């Protein structure tokens, strides 16, 4: 399941619903990325998507993960629009019978979302606005999955 949403979401509630839906799974891993609250600096994050290309890309990445690891289900939520510090930007939940599969698939999907998912990100603070593109570190993290067998 993939949700691209302009409204804030409750990541804990998303985890509760996901766990209910996958009843019987032995292992559930979740990742939540939140807008960082910098000390004293009020900053807003602005995220753009290009639908339906964004959704299609995430769907393909989820399909790849399901082919690579024995997963029961996956849920991806991604905010777009303007976000305040502390608000969730992205949520990935993975259910599997095997804990390592759940960890690896969540890690893989986050690397995809950081470097390949069709989003653009702008940080607005008192210092001004800046578009943020993936760092070299993000591309290196992503490349781990190409190097490994599958």
């Amino acid at each position: 399941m993939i949700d691209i949403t302009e409204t804030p979401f409750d990541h804990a509630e998303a985890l509760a619903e996901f766990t209910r839906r996958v009843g019987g799974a032995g292992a559930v891993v979740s990742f939540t990325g939140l807008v960082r609250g910098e000390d004293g600096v009020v900053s807003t994050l602005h995220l753009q998507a290009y639908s339906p290309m964004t959704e299609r890309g995430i769907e393909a990445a989820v399909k790849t993960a399901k082919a690579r690891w024995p997963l029961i289900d996956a849920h991806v939520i991604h905010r777009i629009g303007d976000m305040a510090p502390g608000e969730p930007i992205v949520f990935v939940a993975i259910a599997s019978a095997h804990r390592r599969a759940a960890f690896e698939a969540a890690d893989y999907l986050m690397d995809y979302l950081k470097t390949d998912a069709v989003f653009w990100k702008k940080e607005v603070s008192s210092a001004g606005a800046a578009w943020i593109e993936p760092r070299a570190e993000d591309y290196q993290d992503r490349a781990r999955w190409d190097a490994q067998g599958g």
Partner: protein
Amino acid sequence: MARLLYFGRLSDVTGHAEETRDLPSDVADTAALRRWLDADHAADGALLEASVRLAVNSEIVMDPAPVSNGDEIAFMPPVGGG
């Protein structure tokens, strides 16, 4: 008329996130389109960068790919969410 979308930092460069334009008769592919719009917006090469990919009707294409009026064409700088 073609619908042109400028994502991320490119909307700052061109001054808007989208526009509808009549493609000149000599702009028949994405390479010509980049050159035309880069000059037209005085973008100083921002629309010519190799890291900026183009999507025609929601499919990413390699230069030079055909374009014509009626298409939706997106200029996409490096992507990344999370």
